[in-house]
Every structure is written in C-alpha cells, then in structure tokens.
C-alpha cells in the first residue's frame, strides 16, 4: 500500500514558543482528500492534532488551510491532484492560530458584519413581515450571483498581501460582499455603504494583486468586485437612494373567463 507523507504544522500558543512540523505516514487511497488524510492521522496516529471541519463538501468553509503553500479547502483538495507524495498542511496566513490548523476567524467575521451584509430598505415593515417578493431581473441577478457563492472560508483573506500589513483593511471577502449588496437592485443603503468604504484603510488599499480570486474555491472573483466597487466609491453616487429599490411583485389578476 502506498503512503502519503503528511506534514502538519503544530502550534499551541499556550504551550509552544514556535511552530514545529510533524510528519505522519498515512495510507493512500483513491479519491482521498487532504481532510481524509488529516482525519486518518488524527484518528489513528495522533489524537492531539487540532483541525476544524464540518460539511466535507466545500459548503461550510470550515477546513480552510494552507496546503503545500497555497490556501485551499482540505475537503476540496484531493491528495492525488497535488502531484506530490509529501503534503504539507499549515494554518492560514493573516489569522491568529488557536491551535495547529485552527485559526481565529473572529476579526474576519467582524469585518464581514461591518459591511452590513443584508438588504437596507426604507420599507422596514415589509422586510420584517414580507407579503411578496421583490422584483429582480435576470441580468441584475447575474451581476451579483457569483458573489453570493461566498462561503466565508477566509482563503481570500489569508492570501491578501494588504491584509498582511493593514489590520484595518476589510479584506477581499468583506469588500466583495459590500459590492454584492451595493449593486443588489433591492438594496437602498448605497450611501451608507459608500461612506463606510471611502476610508484611508478602505477599498483603496486593494492593490489588485488578484491572489484572492486565484485561491477562491467557489470561483468567486473578489478582485473584480473590489475594482468595480472603486468605481462606485470614486463617483460618490449610490446606485439607488431610499425608496428607489426594487418594487414588490404583484400577482397579475386572473384572466376573466
């Protein structure tokens, strides 16, 4: 039986001074993902390996880590596709380490929340107790669709060179979501959003390295969203003002017999 040499970065901030690399020999099988290999190592070789996972199908974004130097989802990366017998698993960059491969995503989610990732509208009563759907054309949906695929795994943020130096920079995930809601025809909070983004540590600190789009496992292009967002911020004009958002869909009256 062939084996894969799984190298895991181990670090416990409460007990260790610096990270160390530990190697495990894991029996290789067809279709094995890096998460499978890590779980085998944890179940049969070393119970103390710290890792986070949940859905095992690239939907929850929990198992983001650096695999052979590149941010990836462990459940979405097959050992065979790496083309190497040695698989190195490290925690994501730009995040504090909780233990081993588990990183602290608190600031990441805080920045996501700061972007107000929800529809802002004047008709608050309708928002709380919906009576119908808001109208949205297919071409309008197309503009925002890819950004709705974000699973908040943090891979884009871990690959961003600006996040590495500027702790106040919202990061590609949050900015892509800002664009997603700014351009959503149902949203009326454009002015608030633009004000938030036009900051010394805001959208302008993106230097378009493009690494966020390169590593996204869901095919989202945050770099594109950020550049389009810059155009809106530069013009200073919100796409819609209060009361100009998508209207409610009214069912047509039944045809008379």
């Amino acid at each position: 039986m062939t084996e894969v040499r799984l190298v895991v970065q181990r670090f416990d901030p409460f007990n260790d001074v610096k990270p160390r690399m530990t190697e495990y020999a894991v029996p290789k099988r067809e279709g094995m993902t890096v998460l499978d290999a890590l779980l085998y190592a944890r179940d049969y070789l070393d119970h103390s390996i710290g890792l986070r996972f949940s859905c095992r199908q690239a939907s929850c974004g929990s198992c983001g880590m650096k695999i052979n130097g590149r941010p990836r989802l462990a459940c979405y990366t097959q050992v065979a596709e790496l083309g190497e017998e040695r698989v190195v698993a490290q925690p994501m960059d730009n995040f504090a380490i909780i233990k081993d491969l588990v990183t602290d995503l608190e600031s990441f989610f805080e920045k996501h929340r700061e972007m107000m990732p929800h529809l802002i509208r004047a008709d608050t009563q309708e928002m709380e107790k919906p009576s119908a759907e808001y109208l949205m054309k297919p071409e309008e949906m197309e503009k925002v669709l890819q950004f709705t695929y974000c699973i908040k795994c943090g891979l884009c943020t871990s690959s961003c060179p600006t996040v590495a130096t500027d702790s106040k920079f919202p990061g590609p995930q949050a900015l892509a979501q800002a664009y997603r809601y700014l351009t959503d025809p149902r949203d009326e909070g454009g002015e608030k959003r633009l004000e938030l983004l036009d900051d010394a540590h805001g959208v302008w600190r993106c230097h378009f390295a493009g690494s966020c789009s390169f590593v996204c496992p869901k095919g989202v292009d945050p770099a594109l969203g950020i550049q389009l967002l810059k155009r809106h911020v530069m013009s200073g004009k919100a796409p819609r003002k209060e009361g100009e958002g998508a209207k409610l869909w009214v069912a047509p009256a039944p045809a008379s017999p």
Partner: protein
Amino acid sequence: MRESRLMLVQYATAVAAVALVSVHLIMQGVIYPYATAISFNNILSIYKNGFYAIFLEALLVVVLVHGFNGVRIILNELRQTKPWTAWVDAVTVLAIVVAVAYGTRTVILAVFGGGPV
C-alpha cells in the same frame, strides 16, 4: 479630504506624469543633442524658454504630489492608529509644500539669472 479624492489626484498625476516625462525625455533625447543635454549652459538656456520653464514646473508639481501621496499610502498601511494617520497626512502635505517651494525657487532662479550662459 476624502480618500477617493486623494486617489483621484493620485491617478490623475500618474497619467500626467507619464505624459510630461515622455515629452521631457523626447526633448532631452531627440530635440536637444543628448551629449549636451545635461550640460550646465544647456540647462540654463532651456529655462530661458518661458514655455519650457512652465512645463518643468508642472512636471515638478505632478511628480512630487504623486510621489509623496504614494509614500503616504504606504506609510498608512504600516500602522493603523489615528494619530499615525494624522501625522503621516500632515508630514506629506508639509513635504510637498517644501519640495515644491524649493524646486520652484530653482526654476525661478534659472529663469531670472542662474549664472553665465
């Protein structure tokens, strides 16, 4: 000033700098003989041309604003405290004013004298 306005200045000065530096290099490399382009007397004679003196002053302002604003952006990414940002902004404005004033002084001295031609 809003960050978007500062970035608009940054982009505008970048485009202007490319255009002005291109013209400057063409003037130095093609119109004036390259061998004498940086000789003292040749440079003084260039400044005597009022149009070219204004051109060089514009080049000075554009390049300095673009350069110092770029340094401001880099410094703001290094630290994220409000006092640091305020300090960087103030020093940037001061540096631009001082550098433009010193450069302008050189242009004026060259236009109205500046030694033997």
